[in-house]
């Protein structure tokens, strides 16, 4: 065996890289990381490919998260699924309930004798991808959490010293910013459902849905419309909208540009947007990062926020050799060196404790003020049933429904209470449909 290995290396030394690639087993990895993130993904794959000669990981960019999930499902139905696919957090319930389509990560690692310790991951990250019977089903890769970005120049001009910690303070600051003329708009948001409902609920210890927000079964139903504080929060935003203290910025991350252009002085969005905002703000304004505000009427102390981002799922239908390579690659991917590099480059949080420690000892958080906000906010306290995350079936569509109803509240067509009630009613139909479709 050793002799064979030696011979192999000697032979390799005389061959070009491409011919060695042909001999190796190919592992396809479909992902949704665009632009600089996509380049980083390629870099990671190249590093893995160069580190050994048995496997070649081929990352393929498949468009948005939603596009990639659609492509993966279509490919699976046609027996052409990739070995690894990246699925965003709202697609997690869909994947978890597709028992015949996925190769659970704990099982893969066990069957290939690859070292794997679920406890190496941050608790908030681990619990999100762990099934109700305590097994980790997918490999966390890029996790983020929403934070508050604020325009320091505008704050100075309006005479506001510190970033607001509570929603009440946000309202006061936003009005002050607009009235003083420091900015045209006070606050905007990206990912409206994720920041203003899902994370609002977690931080303020309110249920978003029953059964621990869907963690304990597919019979969960939405209840955010029944929480007084949640309804009041959306009503506040709708009121602020009238005076541009708040401006609704559209779905997904389209609200970000209202902050990047300097129009709005505050933005709630993913910690992973840091690099993009940095680039856009360069030479225009300075910005700071603060924790996502909490509602002082609902809780005394803000609880942990919940994660977004994506994880890697291993699909069924590949050869044993491929799975051995997948296990090895995933092991490589979660190593502290790779994770620390990925997190410091992107603004995603380091997903393992070791990677976090490594960044800390390298002085990354001391050199980059604001970078630690996300991880501190994610890890404060122990997550309870309201704070493990939101894991519901048909969640991408439920987010669309919520966005649609929020739009009706923000443009004044409907009061917040009625808009949220309708969102929950329609969302619950989606949940019932999902429950029916996965029932065996």
């Amino acid at each position: 065996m050793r002799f064979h290995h030696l011979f192999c290396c000697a032979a390799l030394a005389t061959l070009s890289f491409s011919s060695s690639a042909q001999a190796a087993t190919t592992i396809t990895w479909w992902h949704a990381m665009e632009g600089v993130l996509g380049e980083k993904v390629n870099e990671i794959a190249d590093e893995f490919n160069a580190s050994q000669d048995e496997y070649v990981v081929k990352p393929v960019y498949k468009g948005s998260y939603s596009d990639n999930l659609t492509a993966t499902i279509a490919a699976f139905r046609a027996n052409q699924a990739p070995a690894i696919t990246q699925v965003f957090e709202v697609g997690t319930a869909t994947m978890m309930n597709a028992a015949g389509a996925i190769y659970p990560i704990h099982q893969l690692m066990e069957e290939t004798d690859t070292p794997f310790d679920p406890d190496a991951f941050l608790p908030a990250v681990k619990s999100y991808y762990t099934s109700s019977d305590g097994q980790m089903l997918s490999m966390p890769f890029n996790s983020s959490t929403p934070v508050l970005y604020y325009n320091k120049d505008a704050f100075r001009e309006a005479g506001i010293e510190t970033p607001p910690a509570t929603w009440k303070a946000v309202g006061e600051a936003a009005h002050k910013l607009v009235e003083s003329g420091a900015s045209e708009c006070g606050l905007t948001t990206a990912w409206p459902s994720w920041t203003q409902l899902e994370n609002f609920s977690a931080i303020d210890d309110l249920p978003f849905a029953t059964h621990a927000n869907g963690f304990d079964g597919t019979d969960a139903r939405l209840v955010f419309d029944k929480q007084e504080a949640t309804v009041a929060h959306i009503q506040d935003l709708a009121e602020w909208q009238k005076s541009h203290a708040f401006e609704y910025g559209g779905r997904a991350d389209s609200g970000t540009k209202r902050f990047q252009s300097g129009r709005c002085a505050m933005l709630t969005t993913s910690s992973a947007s840091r690099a993009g905002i940095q680039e856009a703000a360069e030479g225009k304004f300075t910005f700071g990062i603060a924790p996502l505000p909490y509602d002082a009427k609902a809780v005394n102390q803000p609880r942990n926020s919940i994660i977004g981002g994506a994880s890697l799922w291993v699909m069924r239908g590949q050869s044993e050799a491929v799975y051995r390579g997948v296990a090895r690659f995933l092991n490589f991917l979660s190593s502290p060196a790779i994770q620390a590099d990925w997190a410091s480059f992107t603004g995603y949080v380091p997903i393992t404790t070791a990677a976090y420690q490594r960044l800390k000892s390298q002085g990354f958080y001391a050199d980059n003020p604001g970078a630690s906000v996300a991880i501190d906010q994610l890890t404060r306290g122990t997550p309870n049933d309201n704070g493990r995350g939101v894991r519901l079936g048909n969640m991408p569509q439920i987010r669309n429904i919520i966005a649609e109803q929020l739009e009706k509240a923000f443009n004044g067509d409907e009061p917040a209470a009625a808009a949220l009630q309708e969102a929950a009613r329609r969302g619950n139909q989606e949940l019932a449909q999902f429950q029916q479709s996965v029932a065996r």
Partner: protein
Amino acid sequence: MTTFERYRFTPWLLLAPQLAIVAVFFFWPAADSLRQAFYVQDAFGLGERFVGLANFQRVMASSGYWQAMSVTVLFSVLVAGGAMLLALLLAVLADRVLHGARLYRVLLTWPYAIAPAVAGILWMFMFDPVLGVLTHVLAGFGVHWDAQLHPGQALALVVIASIWQQMSYNFVFFLAGLQMIPTSLLEAAAIDGAGPFRRFIGITLPLLSPTAFFLLVMNSVYVLFETFATIDNTTLGGPGGATRTLVYKLYEDGFVARDLGSSSAQSVLLMVLVGALTFVQFRYLERRVQY
């Protein structure tokens, strides 16, 4: 006729490639969605259950479906009507141009060469609530443009983008139709003392009616199906569902929510609807067309 009887197989042989394409890309998927409309299935196709007409009941009972229906009707009338009237006006004007006629025609045909997705992005940039050029122009007139928030503005945006796209197609056909009208007819009417407007109503319009009818059918199909990319790139069906047409809803339910049963039921309903619409157009409107 006798030739066809003698060569029984040759016509089929010649038709075969075309029929194969239609069968694979139309009949097969159509049959598949007809079947799926009666089942509830999980996204990965791991299991399915026959549910009879439950999917149809669910679709018909949802307020979202009827909202999408009324959006579609309003949107269709505005786009088909707007694109045809504007194209007719421009064709009549371009037909009268003496100098540089070719340039005008090329410029007016241009937008059709642009893919709907690209057109959507162009309009999205111009009307972007923060960065859009036209947003700033409108702000100068005291209009606060924010199509991400106001349903009326969002609908106006997709209507304008769609009309702009489809107008060129109509323009080409109207212009061709106008050039087929014999000048002698118009001259004779002019000698009889008919003014330009009278000549247009009495001669041009009736002689254009076959073209107009053809365009009505084509525009209906365009509005129903091809505006998808425009909507997907500008408003995403929002705000509050104000620009969600039947096709956009079908896409959302099928590809975002992965509710194959419901989206299949919707596609069957849409097929019936388009079939009925085309039937009505041919049965009743075509009678008024003078060939």
